[in-house]
């Protein structure tokens, strides 16, 4: 089978539309993952054993089950309880929830890495707990974990084709649909690979740059 450049040109606009959906889902999911992960981490540190143990088991459960199963649950099972989500919404929530359990671990590591002396200085200055977190601990912890969080953005991007399973019109889904219509898979599926590589490489470069910057200001 020979590569058909003409056909490639025809399907590229559709694939780029698919890529746009993929990127949108990834970025929205990432916002959820980054915020919710921080919420998990802080809840894990509350003195209430009920709260922190519940959070511990929920995040452990989410982390230990496959993303695709969670997506199916959100999209196919929730409607039986009257909660109907559109494919993209379910996909974004699924990605965000799943990855929030990873970012929570990242934040935890970052917080643990803040020297004990910082907490003690905050006590010595009589700063309230909330101020200590907001002004002293979190800024230092988050700066430490920015590169790691960036890597999860790329990992999440590469997991996004799973959204095909719940009919999100993302890149792979578009390519697959195109292929079934024309019975030519070589070009669309190859293009998917190429587009993923392009976006991943560009993002990696950006993350590296971020990493260097956070080291430079240490």
């Amino acid at each position, binding site marked *: 089978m020979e590569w058909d450049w003409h056909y490639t040109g025809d399907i590229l606009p559709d694939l780029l539309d698919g890529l746009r959906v993929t990127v949108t889902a990834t970025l929205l999911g990432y916002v959820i993952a980054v915020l919710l992960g921080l919420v998990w981490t802080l809840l894990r540190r509350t003195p209430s054993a009920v709260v922190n143990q519940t959070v511990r088991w929920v995040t452990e459960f989410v982390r230990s089950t496959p993303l695709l199963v969670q997506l199916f649950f959100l999209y196919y099972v929730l409607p039986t309880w009257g909660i109907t989500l559109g494919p993209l919404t379910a996909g974004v929530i699924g990605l965000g929830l799943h990855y929030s359990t990873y970012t929570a671990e990242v934040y935890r590591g970052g917080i643990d890495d803040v020297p004990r*002396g910082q907490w*003690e*200085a905050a*006590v*010595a*200055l*009589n700063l309230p707990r909330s101020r200590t977190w907001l*002004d*002293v601990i979190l800024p230092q912890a988050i700066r430490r974990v920015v590169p790691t969080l960036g890597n999860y953005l790329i990992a999440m991007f590469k997991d996004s084709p799973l959204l095909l399973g719940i009919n999100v019109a993302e890149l792979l889904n578009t390519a697959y649909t195109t292929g079934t219509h024309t019975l030519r898979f070589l070009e669309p599926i190859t293009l998917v690979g190429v587009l993923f590589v392009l976006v991943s490489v560009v993002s990696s470069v950006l993350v590296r740059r971020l990493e260097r910057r956070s080291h430079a200001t240490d």
Partner: protein
Amino acid sequence: MPPTEKKALPAGQAPGLKFEKVVKRFGANAVLRELDFAVAPGERVTLIGPSGSGKTTILRLLMTLERPDGGLIWIGDDTLWHRERGGKRVPANQKHLHEMRKQVGMVFQQFNLFPNMSVLRNLTEAPVRVLGLSRDEAVERATSLLDLVGLADKADAHPTRLSGGQQQRVAIARALAMQPKVLLLDEVTSALDPELVVGVQDLLRDIARESDLTLLCVTHEMRFARDISDRVLMFDQGQIVEQGPPDQIFNEPTEQRTRDFLQAVLAT
């Protein structure tokens, strides 16, 4: 010290301190065993003794960084770790600790400046957030304190760009910005390069002389102990072995353990 700089120092009656049968254990290891001692208002006291003798623990209990396992710690007329309720003494809540801590400041061995803030912000953060000063008032106070410690030109610098000696000066200014009545100095020159030690010690000596602070100091620098204190307490194994004015402790110690300790320290 010029009068404008002296104004930056906390003023007013300082409280005394009292430890009453204070016990502190770390696991099975009792660091303090029913320790009794008192510090008069405005008195400057240095704790000396071998490592692990409980000196730093005393400061950390006063700063509420450690919780005592028994006994009472008084700051002025009030107990630090207990409060009165219905005529009974009950464990302190956060509010009580917060009120009590307002009187106490601490300078650490490792400085513990906030690396995510400028020097100025290190000094204004707590006065604004805790004491409710306006931004302008806090900056004014911070500026005169930076003047006092000789770092007026470093207000906008990042703490990690400063030398150890400069960082410790900022930390001293930061503690003073809260206008404590009791200042705790925990081996404040131990982490400094030798050539920077004297500058920081001289600064603290001047501050001690010019202010009404009650001062409690842990140090291995005997010259500094002699310079700064009215009274020296020699500690060993959580107990006071010997105490007295610096001249007496350093020149004519009566206890063998004190003599051994001084000999070991002065030999290094």
